[in-house]
Structure formats: C-alpha cells, structure tokens
C-alpha cells in the first residue's frame, strides 16, 4: 500500500502513514485554512487501509496546537479508525499542557477506541 508522507509546515502537521513499516503518525501544528481539504487524503488513506489492516495499529497523534476546524477533522479521522480491529491511539501531550491532555480525553470519550496517553 502506498505511503502517505506529508512534511509539516507552520500551519499543517507532519503526516506519515506507512502500513509496511507500521508507522502511523500525525504531529506538529494543525491550523490550515481549509481543514477539510487538508485531511481528505488522510481519510482516503485510512479508508483504503481499513480494507486490509495490520493485525495491530498504534496510531500516534502528537499535536502541539490544533484549531477548532482541525478538531472536527481529527474526530472524523478517529471515527474512520474506529472500525479497524487492533487499533490503539497513542495520544501525546507536552507534560505541562493540560489543555492537550483534556482534548485527548474528550476525543477518547467520543469514539470507541482505546487511548494510551503519553507525555513528551
């Protein structure tokens, strides 16, 4: 399956979705002008992956900032991951970033996927 690899910019996150190497990562800042357009390739990739996923998937989300339009799309991403067996979300937050910790907790309450919380 093709690898989705997007370099991070000052307003968009770095994204690596690599089935072969088992790397699934969204990290950095997410405040694009058009979040729906930005996340569409990610949703498309997950849709494809869900047809033949790995036995287990650790999906890492390590965001420094995200805007509210992105939060809606992050929920869409999580919803797309929800039906994949063996899925775990690894939610990273900076150790003094209570808002990002709370954001992760809220997302975990909105979808039926196990979340693991880690600080950096």
């Amino acid at each position, binding site marked *: 399956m093709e690898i989705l690899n997007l370099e991070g910019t*000052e*307003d968009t996150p770095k994204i690596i979705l690599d089935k072969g190497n088992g790397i699934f990562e969204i990290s950095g800042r997410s*405040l*694009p*002008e*058009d*979040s*729906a357009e930005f996340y569409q390739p990610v949703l498309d990739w997950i849709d494809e992956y869900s047809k033949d996923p790995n036995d287990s998937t650790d999906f890492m989300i390590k965001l420094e*900032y995200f*805007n*509210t*339009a992105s*939060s*809606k*799309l992050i*929920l869409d991403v999580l919803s797309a991951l929800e039906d994949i067996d063996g899925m775990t979300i690894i939610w990273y937050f*900076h150790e*003094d*970033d*209570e*808002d990002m910790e709370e954001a992760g907790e*809220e997302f975990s*309450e*909105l979808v039926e996927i196990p979340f693991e919380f880690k600080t950096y």
Partner: protein
Amino acid sequence: MKYIFDLHQTMLDHSLILVYEGEFTQEITKSVLAMAERNMDSSGEESSIKRKVFNVMVECLQNIVKHADDVEENHSAIFMIGKHENEYLIVSGNPILKGDIDGLNKKLENINSLDKDGLKALYKDIIKNTQISDKGGAGLGFVDMARKSGRPLEFDFIDMDDKYSFFCLKTSISRA
C-alpha cells in the same frame, strides 16, 4: 504629524504589544501569529500561557478571515494584543452585517452563561453533531476561546452605518 504620537501613546496606554489593521488572510494570520509568538518567547512567557494565547489568537484571526467576505465593500478589520501584568488581552474588531448581530449575540450570551462543565458539554455536542461549514468553520471557535480563557468573552456591536456594525471581541488569558 501628531496622530503618530497619539497612536503611539494610545498603544502604550493600553499596553498593546501588537496591532494589525487591514485585510485578513491566512498568510497574514501566520505572520501575526509568528510575531506574537516571538514576542512571548523573547519575554520568556510560560509555555502554558503562551499556548493559550496562541490558541485564542488562531480562532480569533481565522474567524475574521472566514467572515471577511460577508462584508461587500470594506473588509478592513483590526486585531490587537494587550499585555498587562496579570493578563493578556486578545482583541479584535471587524465589520459585520447588522442582520448577523442577533445570532452572534445569542451565541455569545449562551457561552457566557455556561460554567466549565457546561462549555465542555457544548463543545462535545457541537463537534459530534455539526459539519464543517462552506466557510470551513466548525462552529467551535467562540466555545474554544471561552474554554481557554476561563472567563466570559467581552463583546460589543458599534453602529457603522445602515448596513454594518463593528463587532468587537475581547478575550483575556490570565498570567497568574
């Protein structure tokens, strides 16, 4: 030339560290964010406070960008940051159609009537049940600003002419 000094004095009187007046775009948003971030970095601001200010700035600026086209003639808006001993103030003003006042007023009054748990419930309700608008908004901006602030959002509508009012919004982030 007196207006130069007057403007300078006004900025000092209100402890404004950044003022931008003009058209708002995503490119401008990024520049304003970068400037404010640099200012907070160089003054050694605590990272938790910096993040809250940054978050509120993003929502505030992107609101203006998204709704600039609602106004036909003059899109010019203002954005500023005040830095006081005990708080940051993130302040914006932009022209809106008079017909939009009631809706905005209701939305903001509702947000201001809610406590921490109420805001959290409203946030979760909106994120679950609404789709991204044609303008790219999730309808969560004000709720998020109120949550990051922990205080009511201050707002006012100033008459401009028959068609437009100037929507002023002030969000504070405590430095304590």
